[in-house]
């Protein structure tokens, strides 16, 4: 059996990365515990995929999980878990984790943290940022995506996190999931690390960035803290979001919440327009999910231009200003 920890957004919808993780669970050769499996890599799962949801469970989420092939939803709504506490949430997940098989979550900060706690609590080994599973074992991203590690986790239960965009969510024959509500006695010690309060400030909200259909990226090529006017205007014309490289956050030109890459957000917009960004591997790790990649760069040989679908060679300030003018002109 495979159990997936399902994250939902504030509107109660299943997050994109959780939908990816469920699709991954369904389509990859995961050991489902006990009986030997000789399943084709892309064949139908011989085991079942179950989900765990902590907190409110909306009708929309139940419906989405059914369409993603989740047969059983373990649902826990507990007053003591209303605020996030990794240890307590992990215990809630462990309570519905089988002794053998696979427990997995998407490779978000929450997913990473909960799976590591759950691995220790179940005595299992854990692999982070897995991208595929086959007869030989697991394949995961290491060195910020520059290389893949092929590994094998021994033990009856394996705990995984799935790298963002390792697969595209795919729906299957819809089922009506069985919802199993359960309860938990929360250990006092597990609440020591509970969130005391959450402050919502525009500057550290990365959710706009991860959900935007269009992201304009800005790197060192912007030149200075005062060089963002054109890119921000373009963001506005696209109703999108600004994403930046680590050089930009490192120099203090923009807040860290806007950083895209290995140590920033991983995004999957319809279009990413990278302005003055060289395309370092750690930056590329964050934009693998972009459907169309556009580069605006003075250096035609830069990795970003080479990896892009479309590119304009030139100074980003001049080019982006001209793009803005053209958009305004066509609006009439």
């Amino acid at each position, binding site marked *: 059996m495979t159990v997936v920890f399902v*994250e939902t957004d504030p509107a109660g919808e299943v997050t994109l990365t959780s939908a990816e993780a469920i699709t991954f669970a369904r389509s990859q050769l995961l050991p489902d515990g006990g009986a030997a499996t000789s399943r084709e890599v892309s064949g139908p799962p011989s085991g079942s995929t179950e989900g765990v949801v902590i907190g409110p469970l909306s009708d929309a989420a139940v419906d989405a999980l059914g369409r993603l092939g989740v047969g059983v939803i373990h649902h826990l709504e507990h007053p003591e878990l209303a605020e*996030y506490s*990794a*240890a307590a949430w992990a215990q809630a997940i462990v309570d519905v984790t089988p002794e053998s098989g696979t427990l997995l979550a998407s490779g*978000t*900060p*929450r997913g*990473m*943290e909960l799976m*590591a*706690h759950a691995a220790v609590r179940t005595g299992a*080994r*854990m692999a*982070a940022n897995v991208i595929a599973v086959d007869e030989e074992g697991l394949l995961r991203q*290491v*060195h*910020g995506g*520059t*290389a*893949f*590690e*092929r590994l*094998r986790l021994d033990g009856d239960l394996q705990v995984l996190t799935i790298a963002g965009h390792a697969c595209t969510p795919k729906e299957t024959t819809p089922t009506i999931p069985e919802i199993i509500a359960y309860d938990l006695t929360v250990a006092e010690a597990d609440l020591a*690390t509970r*969130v*005391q309060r*959450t*402050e*919502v*400030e525009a500057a*550290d*909200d*990365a*959710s706009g960035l991860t959900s935007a259909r*269009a992201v304009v990226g800005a790197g060192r090529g912007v030149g200075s803290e005062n060089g963002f006017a054109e890119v921000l205007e373009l963001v*506005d*014309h*696209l109703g999108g979001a600004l994403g930046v490289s680590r050089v930009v956050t490192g120099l203090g030109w923009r807040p*860290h*919440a806007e950083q895209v890459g290995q*140590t920033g957000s991983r995004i999957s917009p*319809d*279009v990413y327009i990278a302005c003055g960004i060289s395309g*370092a*591997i750690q930056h590329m790790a964050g934009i693998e999910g972009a459907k*169309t990649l*556009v580069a605006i760069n003075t250096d*035609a040989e830069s*990795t970003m*231009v080479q*990896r892009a*679908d*479309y590119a*304009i*060679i030139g*100074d980003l300030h001049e*080019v982006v200003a*001209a793009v803005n003018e*053209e958009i305004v002109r*066509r609006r009439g």
Partner: protein
Amino acid sequence: MNILVCIKRVPDIAGSVTLDATGTGIDETGLGHAMSSHEECAVELAIQTAAATSGTVTVLTLGPAEAVEQLRAAVAVGANDGILVEAADPSVFAPEDIAQVIGDVIRDRAEAGQTFDLVLTGDDAADTGDFQVGIRLAYDLEYPVLTNIQTLNAGGADGGGGPGGERGSGRIEARGIGPAGTEIFSLDLPAVVAVHEGGVDPRYPSITGRMKAKKAQVVEYDAPVPGTGSPRIRLELPEVKASSVTILGEGPEAAPALVDVLEEIGVIRP
């Protein structure tokens, strides 16, 4: 407050890499080394927190003899001393082995009279990216653990580490970015906190810092043979895809061609 920061020596990778002869690691010839970026921020947070509480900062690494360079780099920016747990080939250690060895060293230091109120790690090491050593270490020590933390505030903490670092040796406020905004935690010490870069700017070493680093006191241990052993079979490199870029043009004259593409995708606001 006495703080221990766990740092890992990792190759500094900018472009593509090649594999070594065994196929289980990357070829490090010609590559520089550094501590992971989350750990640089952890060191900075430790220095600030220790300064605010008249405490000390010790850095620990499990790695080859050369990893003393990373310990010295931390002393150069303000750490007080270092602990080198020498392992000729750290890649044979599983994350659970590393956590176990660090836990044992922390207990041994406590017996020698050196205790820590707070243990900092990075969220994940830049090379293996296992996302678990800090959490496993916390369970081994039976301390609470937070991850994804960007800033710390020791205001109100008594700053004194009790002998053996027993609970009640202070409290700390920690902040990190969660899915809905900045999350604030308040935690009894001793504890483990895994740091995510971005909350503080790591400082550069001063001249006196560099001088101090040369004479830094480093306690040495030998890492035992790993118990679990790394689950790695080998490394593989991603396929390099041939470029299929369409150059729309040079300079501002190419702008209309890009606007055509954006219209085609349908992302321009009406």
